[in-house]
């Protein structure tokens, strides 16, 4: 990623040289390109990405915002937060013998990442097969990897017309922007297809729901330079303008938008689909948390503690029973929950009910379940759980996607269908109506 940014002129020479010097001093000279995006001390020390990094670049016909996501198992929550903001996926796999297999087999992360990204609504994938120079640009190896991945992508639900494969070598800079130069000779003999940048150019931005009410799930909160708090996130619907008053959910607070920053430039308004940084005033920063949702006071997001959802169960070892305790992921927020009722199993393709009140859910099944949020403590008097802002899939596609994880692996993904125990708030702060059906 760092190399790509350099080739497209986004990194200046000074930074690049600094990264190179720093990384070779730390004994990690091969990571010099990674240091562009892995900024924290711990990431550089351990040589892995732990949290997402945002960068933007321009290709001839597109403006692309890149979210570099961590691959490590423990940081999947951060990866989910990034993937929830994404329109397309760029999957970089290692071509070295053994490395690809390790990632693609059951225990590796390649499968989990692709399933996650698909569940979050991404349908366009570019697969960059990296480090091909280490296997001497062997075309059969490239074909082997492509074949395996193609089969898996189709199985996971990615339409094959929207997937593409490209061989690259990031270290040498081959086939990123162009396929010329001494290093690229071997590759250019058998590969005549587009380069990575060409493929990025052809990505289609999905339709944006500009007419729907504003929804901005917050993925980051920080203190701005001047007074006020900065929040970052991708706008899931609607338009936001400077000076607008927004509600922050969950909670009773509202804030005023002082500045909007898109790609380090101040703009007066931003529409659905942009990754924007909003600077808010007249709100206590303690009320802004990662995972809160900004919305207009006239059209607030309902808060739910119990809801039904249609889910697809992934390839798991232990079946899901009633009352299984899970972690519910919605954008950048994860909360403990339980699957309180298994309502019915459905046919995967048609959605017709096949069996009511099943005992367990095994892998590959599509089912309708009821999910209840849990309070954090194992104490006997039931402390009611804090509700989360959630909308059914039919209302807003981006707000209506959830992921379910348990024990460190993603077990299923789904869409909320109806909210059962909902707190409906009056727009006047201070008056709250509880509607629990």
């Amino acid at each position: 990623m760092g190399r790509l940014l350099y080739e497209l002129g986004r990194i200046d020479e000074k930074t690049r040289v600094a990264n190179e010097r720093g990384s070779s001093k730390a004994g990690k000279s091969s990571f010099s390109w990674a240091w562009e995006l892995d900024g924290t001390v711990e990431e550089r020390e351990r040589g892995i990405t732990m949290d997402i990094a945002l960068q933007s670049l321009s290709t001839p016909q597109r403006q692309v915002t890149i979210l570099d996501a961590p691959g490590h198992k423990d940081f999947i929550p951060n990866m989910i937060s990034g993937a929830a903001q994404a329109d397309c996926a760029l999957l970089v796999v290692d071509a070295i013998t053994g490395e690809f297999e390790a990632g693609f087999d059951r225990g590796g992360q390649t499968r989990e990442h692709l399933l996650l990204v698909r569940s979050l609504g991404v349908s366009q994938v570019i697969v960059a097969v990296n480090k091909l120079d280490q296997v001497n640009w062997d075309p059969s190896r490239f074909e082997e990897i492509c074949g395996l991945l193609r089969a898996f992508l189709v199985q996971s639900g990615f339409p094959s017309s929207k997937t593409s494969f490209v061989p690259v070598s990031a270290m040498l800079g081959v086939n990123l922007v162009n396929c010329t130069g001494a290093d690229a000779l071997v590759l250019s003999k058998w590969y005549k297809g587009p380069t990575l940048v060409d493929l990025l150019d052809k990505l289609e931005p999905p339709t944006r729901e500009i007419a729907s009410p504003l929804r901005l799930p917050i993925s980051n909160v920080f203190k701005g330079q001047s007074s006020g708090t900065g929040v970052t996130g991708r706008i899931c619907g609607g338009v936001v303008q400077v000076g607008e008053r927004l509600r922050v959910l969950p909670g009773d607070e509202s804030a005023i938008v002082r500045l909007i920053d898109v790609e380090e430039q101040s703009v007066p308004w931003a529409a659905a689909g942009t990754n924007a940084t909003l600077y808010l005033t007249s709100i206590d920063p303690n009320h802004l948390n990662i995972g809160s949702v900004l919305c207009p006071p006239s059209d607030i997001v309902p808060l739910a503690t119990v809801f039904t959802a249609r889910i697809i169960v992934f390839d798991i070892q232990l079946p899901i029973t009633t009352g299984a305790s899970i972690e519910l992921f919605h954008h950048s927020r994860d909360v403990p929950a339980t699957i309180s009722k298994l309502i019915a199993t459905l046919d995967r393709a048609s959605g017709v009910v096949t069996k009511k009140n099943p005992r367990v859910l095994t892998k590959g099944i599509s089912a309708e379940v009821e999910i209840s949020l849990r309070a954090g403590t194992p104490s006997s008097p039931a402390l009611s759980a804090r509700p989360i802002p959630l909308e059914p899939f039919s209302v807003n596609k981006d707000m209506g996607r959830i992921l379910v994880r348990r024990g460190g692996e993603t077990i299923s993904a789904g869409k909320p269908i109806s909210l059962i125990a909902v707190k409906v708030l009056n727009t006047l702060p201070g008056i709250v109506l509880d509607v629990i059906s």
Partner: protein
Amino acid sequence: MKLVGKYVDKNGAGYVNLRPEDDEDMWHLYNIIQQGDIVRAPAIRRVQNVSATGSTESHRVKLNLTIQVSRVEFSSSGAPSSSADQASSPAGSSSAAPTTTAALHISGPVASENRHVKMGAFHTLDIESNRDVRIEKVDGWDSVALARVEESCVPGRGAEVGAVVCGEGTAAFCLLSQHMTLVTHRISVSIPRKASAPGTSQYEKAMARFYATLYDAFVRHIPYTSPSLRAIVLASPGWVREGVFNAMMTEAGRRGDKTLSKALREKTVKVHVSSAHVHSLVEVLKSPEIVAQLKETKFAREGIVLDKFFKMLGVDEMRAWYGPDHVRLAADRGAIGTLLISDELFRASDPKLRKTYVELVEGVQQKGAEVVMFSSMHESGQQLNQLTGIAAILTFPLDVEVVEAEEREAREERRQQETKMLDGGGAG
């Protein structure tokens, strides 16, 4: 808990005199006292006297009251939990620590005569530690209740393991004892992610502040000086626990707190868990480091057995059953190898239901199987409760449908025989 006096005859009637000492004893009492029992304990009552001239005077009187229990309430923290959960999520800095003393409230009408209070007036007893409580049951002293009393009087407990489950910006301090997991304190700090444009130093500054808050909270809430604390567990996904441990060691060194440094060095166990929530404590109990050290403690045993049950459910569905009806069917056929039962079921207010569960447990024990009683205050008990509170690992596979069909047939046959007899009797 101290057993001061006991008298139970063979029908299960009688009384027991107990003196609770700590939070866990409150939990034991909560499980022993049922609806309909007669409880006698010291209480403070506000008595109003109306004198002849019509002026009222009220004063507080300390007396021993006997009430017939109609409701028992247990809360793990004495301070009432705020009902304003509509309010925004936890503030940036750590919230004030709630008192950790558990509270047990027993309410019911007064059952014995005394000078100040009318018979039948309602009163709520607040059970206090180091005050004798006398519990009398008419027929409730079954094996389960007596076993509980015995268990609670075993000396030498206290918080066994202190655990800190942390993530980036969040931490929950828990004390795990034999029967309870108490979450004593939580911290939630908003940490700006590295994606913030002004620079990555915001992240590091916020983490440093988080470590400092964590240190203060640790010193206040984890009793690292008490000898009964066997281990201090630092659990987290990623590598947060390493950062926490290093920060605490440096801070302890800087402040010159030698006992803390020693305790940290000797007793700390670092465990990797998959998420920063409290329910990952179950994973902590399964990890090899902990199992080696705390094998014989009750909650480790619970965790292991529950894990075995879930594995069995994945491997052979017909050998792992849950739900009261199914487990009863399995018990009738003598198929149970291990019975997992939660104490929540024994707190059922209907005495008949409780009796059936007690019979189930006794039956299983007679056949030589193992019964593991889960405490609802542990995470493993919570998970079992989600699964209806009763589950069994069978020694041989039994298909649910087949068993239910057989039961139905047997019932049909019996009914036919009865009608035949009635007809035969009527005709004859």
